[in-house]
């Protein structure tokens, strides 16, 4: 499977945020998107995921087969928001996404153990701290199997140990033939990752 973007451009409210971006990621490759605030890192991820319309160029997956015809179908999107309901317990939240997204991966309990939240599954999601919420949200990547991970500031709010654990999860995903595209300010600890630097135009 390959994730390919060619001459990609994105806009917000009619203003071009970035243009002319191209990359091709093979199985097991990671792309780190860096750059100052406002250069369009989040917009790039949303355009790649298909949540925003492509202003120019195109983005596609190759070799996804029947199961993953489009980037949207092949991707986990972890945005700034955690996509979990505060009123439901962590287990109920994860159980829902596991059933809804298909391609079931780890069990809910197992995924929570992996992110270091074992035994907290019965708590309402709203009771967790910021870092724990982020970890529960990362567990969402594990409960259903998708080859492409699109991560927007994935380590925001995580402590040092959790960051390292998450780096391990990403390495595991890459070794299993996955693809990671992450927008971040902090080093994520993936060796051999390619880097895409977004720059402000006209400065």
């Amino acid at each position, binding site marked *: 499977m390959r994730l390919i973007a060619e001459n990609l451009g994105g806009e917000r409210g009619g203003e071009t945020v970035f243009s002319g971006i191209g990359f091709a990621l093979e199985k097991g490759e990671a792309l780190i998107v860096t750059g100052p605030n406002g250069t369009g890192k989040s917009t790039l991820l949303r355009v790649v995921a298909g949540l925003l319309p492509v202003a120019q160029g195109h983005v596609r997956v190759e070799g996804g087969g029947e199961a993953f015809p489009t980037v949207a179908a092949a991707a986990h999107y972890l945005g700034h928001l955690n996509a979990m*309901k505060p*009123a439901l317990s962590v287990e109920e939240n994860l159980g829902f996404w596991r059933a809804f997204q298909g391609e079931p991966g780890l069990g809910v309990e197992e995924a929570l153990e992996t992110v270091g939240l074992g035994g907290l599954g019965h708590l309402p999601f709203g009771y967790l701290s910021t870092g724990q919420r982020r970890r529960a949200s990362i567990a969402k990547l594990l409960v259903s199997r998708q080859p492409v991970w699109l991560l927007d500031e994935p380590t925001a709010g995580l402590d040092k140990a959790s960051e390292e654990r998450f780096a391990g999860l990403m390495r595991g995903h890459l070794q299993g033939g996955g693809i990671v595209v992450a927008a971040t300010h902090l080093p994520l600890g993936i060796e051999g990752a390619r880097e895409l630097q977004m720059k402000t135009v006209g400065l």
Partner: protein
Amino acid sequence: MWSLFMRDIRLSIRAGGGALIGVIFFLAVIVTIPFGVGPDLNLLSRIGPAILWIAALLACLLGLDRLFQADREDGSLDLLVLNNDRHMLALTVLTKCLAHWTGSVLPLVIAAPLLGLFMNMEPLGIGATALTLLVGTPAITFIGAAGAAVAVALPRGGLLISVLVLPLTIPVLIFGVSASYGAVADPAPFLQPFLILAALTLFLAVVGPIAAALALRHGTD
């Protein structure tokens, strides 16, 4: 899809879900009417079906603004839209509508016979009104979903949704009330308006979710 249905039902009965708000509003309106109209029993029983229908319509509109907004605020909506290839977005919307109807509107239908007594309606009239509400209120939810999807990005879209949706629900109201009257008033027919009401619900069950899915797809930012 079943998991989405169950999640939304759970959310509607948990704290802050608002399943009971509609019922309480419905109750408040119906209980107030006899005080306003006066203790004229004949008048009350004559306007009873219409009042029940109008109150149910307004109570239905009350909770609609949270249908997609809650999912948008916590980011779930992005993932629901992204899963378009696995679960067609229109079907996701339909499931959410059915869960919303079961959680927030079905209690109204169940409470309607009791409130019919307040309006001095006869048993046949109460039964007919409850039946027309059961068949007709899903149509309001389906058409309301389209309005809710258009207004999803607006922070106080509740009133806008009501204004957008209200004109479109008028046919449902007309046929619902005329079928309820048809059951008790002799020359007026029951079956014809009732069948048109059922047809409206089926028609809107297709059109509403498709329109809402289109609005959601183009509304993401």
